């Protein structure tokens, strides 16, 4: 169901491909010319959808008109009308490659018993990455070629009839993202305070917990506070439903406090169980100093990852808020 009129969707489709400072002016100018062209075509009569479609066809496909306004018709490797198709095919190609890789790895697991399970499963990552990069390269090359040659798959009229709705989703927050976030925070709380022993390393019939359960329990209030901040952020998102200044401030404050809590908990306290690290080094066997170094300092690497995650989250929120403000 398309809620906006064809003209609105057309003007939006052109202007969204232009620099922000031009958008308003070009939109007004386009509305003005479309109105003039319809007036000439229909006179006093109310224009029908067919009239509108004819006028828009005269103006051409939105991406072509936008290219003319920008004055650079071949300024990217893959532009419209190929870009949307490119993204569609890319998602399929990457998805299929990943599934094929998983099936291949599972088959291998049953056909050739592994000497070391951990290494066997870790080997999945570089193999999958290599194949995903290959799939990405092939799809990108094909579409770059098609774009360079100007090959078309759909006709212009079909493009015009299928213009996307103009609802700007860039500044909105999905309800399901928030619900997922709340669920994740609750699961995190239950996992770390309720059943931390399930995160363990199983070898030689003995389960060794990865985290130091006693330390986790003695600092339970830090974990509750950490989760509470995440929950507060998701709840504000659920109420606001869009990237607003209030949302951005909540996110930044919550992230600063979360970073402080993470540093407090991880720096100076033995959160990771040293027995688990020893066991992992034993399992990995003779894999060199890098792995040993990585495991010995795992606590600091985990802290660095948490801080990086917090920084990325804050950056994305600030970026989306500013972009939403810009589009208003």
């Amino acid at each position, binding site marked *: 169901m398309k809620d906006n009129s064809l003209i609105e969707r057309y003007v939006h489709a052109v202007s969204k491909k232009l620099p922000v400072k031009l958008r308003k*002016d*070009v939109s*007004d*100018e*386009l509305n*003005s*010319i479309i*109105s*003039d*062209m319809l007036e000439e075509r229909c006179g006093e009569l109310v224009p029908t959808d067919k009239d509108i479609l004819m006028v828009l066809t*005269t*103006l*051409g496909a939105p991406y*072509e*008109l936008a290219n*003319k*306004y920008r*004055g650079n018709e071949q300024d990217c490797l893959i532009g419209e009308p190929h870009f949307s198709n490119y993204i569609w095919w890319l998602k399929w190609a990457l998805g299929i490659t990943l599934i094929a890789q998983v099936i291949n790895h599972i088959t291998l697991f049953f056909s050739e018993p592994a000497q070391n399970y951990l290494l066997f499963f870790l080997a999945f990552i570089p193999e999958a990455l290599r194949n995903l990069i290959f799939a990405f390269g092939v799809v990108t090359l094909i579409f770059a070629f098609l774009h360079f040659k100007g090959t078309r798959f759909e006709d212009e009229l079909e493009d015009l009839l299928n213009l996307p709705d103009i609802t700007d989703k860039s500044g909105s927050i999905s309800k399901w993202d928030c619900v997922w976030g709340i669920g994740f925070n609750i699961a995190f709380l239950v996992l770390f305070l309720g059943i931390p022993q399930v995160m363990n390393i199983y070898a030689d019939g003995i389960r060794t917990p990865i985290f130091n359960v006693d330390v986790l329990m003695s600092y339970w209030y830090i974990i509750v506070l950490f989760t509470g901040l995440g929950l507060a952020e998701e709840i504000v998102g659920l109420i606001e439903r869009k990237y607003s200044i209030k949302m951005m401030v909540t996110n930044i404050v919550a992230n600063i406090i979360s970073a402080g809590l993470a540093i407090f908990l991880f720096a100076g306290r033995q959160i990771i169980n040293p027995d688990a690290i020893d066991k992992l080094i034993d399992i990995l066997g003779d894999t060199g100093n890098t792995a040993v170094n990585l495991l010995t300092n795992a606590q600091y690497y985990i802290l660095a990852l948490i801080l990086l995650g917090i920084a990325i989250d804050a950056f994305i929120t600030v970026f989306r808020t500013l972009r939403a403000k810009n589009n208003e």
Partner: protein
Amino acid sequence: MDNNEIITGLALELRRGTLVLLTLSQLKKPMYGYNLVKSLEDANISVEANTLYPLMRRLESQGLLSSEWDTDGSKPRKYYILTQDGKKVLEKSEKIWFDLTNKVNSILEADNNEGQ
């Protein structure tokens, strides 16, 4: 490639080259885009709106045209007019055009006369 295609391509190139000159020549007085499309159409020069509007914007960014929105009428319209720089460019371009067409015409006419 058949001859018709070559002729169409040549005509397109010739028209494209004159479009800036024609646009500048019409904007000694303020006009909005569709007004200009119609005024050229009246002179049997058909220009597509999707070519003319971006062109006027480009000429504006080059400082040859200036624009202003008029919101007093029944609908808002953007009027374009030549700037001082635009007038100078038009004047010089007109000279180049007349000079070129005179030379081209004299060559073509001489060839035609020889052929008769």
